[in-house]
């Protein structure tokens, strides 16, 4: 997987998040401050601009640029969190022109660590970690089993979507929704939902 592959992933994320902007904002209106969809759309629109201004040469460069742009342009808590994820993916992949599924799975594991370190959330806290963690685990086991990237991505996306849906009965323990206590129960976490969308954009 080279820079073209990762560019396609990012373009697909931009498309999917833009289509689902209002859905994410609706989820956030229920238990947050109703800006998740617009924040992410703004951040990834800036990503599109940054990529066309300075087209990166390697997957690592590209993902680092995506991370740095999100940190600066999203404006909500998801900016530093997704920014750290992508920046760490970029750092892990280094300057290799081509990366394997093994490399990507290992990078995802460290990316997840940087998200949990920054946000101090664990699985079950009703955050994006509830989608990212099962996806990272699934990618790692798919890489170990020697699956083709297409199949691995499909499984990771399914694991993320399942993780996002599983946040519905949970009570939020981190983020804006945690102020609501038991009233956060019964709603899908918007961060977990956007994380599942980002994973669903990963195609071979």
């Amino acid at each position: 997987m080279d820079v073209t592959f990762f560019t396609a992933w990012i373009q697909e994320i931009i498309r999917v998040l833009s289509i689902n902007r209002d859905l994410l904002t609706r989820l956030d209106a229920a238990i947050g401050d109703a800006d998740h969809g617009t924040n992410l759309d703004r951040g990834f629109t800036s990503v599109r601009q940054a990529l066309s201004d300075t087209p990166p040469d390697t997957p690592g460069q590209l993902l680092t640029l995506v991370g740095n742009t999100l940190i600066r342009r999203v404006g909500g808590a998801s900016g530093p969190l997704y920014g750290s994820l992508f920046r760490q993916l970029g750092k892990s992949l280094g300057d290799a022109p081509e990366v394997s599924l093994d490399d990507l799975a290992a990078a995802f594991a460290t990316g997840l660590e940087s998200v949990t370190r920054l946000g101090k959330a664990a699985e079950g806290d009703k955050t994006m970690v509830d989608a990212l963690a099962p996806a990272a685990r699934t990618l790692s086991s798919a890489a170990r089993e020697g699956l083709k990237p297409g199949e691995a991505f499909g499984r990771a996306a399914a694991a993320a979507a399942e993780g996002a849906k599983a946040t519905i009965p949970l009570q939020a323990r981190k983020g804006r929704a945690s102020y609501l206590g038991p009233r956060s129960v019964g709603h899908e976490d918007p961060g977990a939902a956007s994380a599942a969308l980002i994973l669903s954009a990963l195609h071979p």
Partner: protein
Amino acid sequence: MVGVVLVSHSAALAGEAARLALGIAGAGARVAAAGGTEDGALGTSVDLVERAIAEVDQGAGVILIPDLGSSVLTARLLEEPGQVVLADVPFVEGAVAAAVTAATGAPLERVLASAEEARGYRKGVGGSRHVSDP
């Protein structure tokens, strides 16, 4: 002198908290506000926080005091060990304590410790210590 940067979701909140801290600590203190997004909405801007850090940084270190959510995450991202340090303290009380101590020329660790003491100020019965009377 150690600098103090107040990072809030709201530009007005950060600005007024900085004014309060300066009012109590004296105009010589180095306190800057970084609130809201660049277009004035609620949120956090890395660029505004970086600018505020540069504004108060005199080489003795900078204390970041965030309020909530993305302010905290952004402040954590911008930490540089020994130089730019996050204070996990109540926003207003911590800001005043940090500014007052910084204005005395105290080093970074002392300013940080003083801000952290603000967590213990009691406002009910049994707490009489006033934040402007360190």
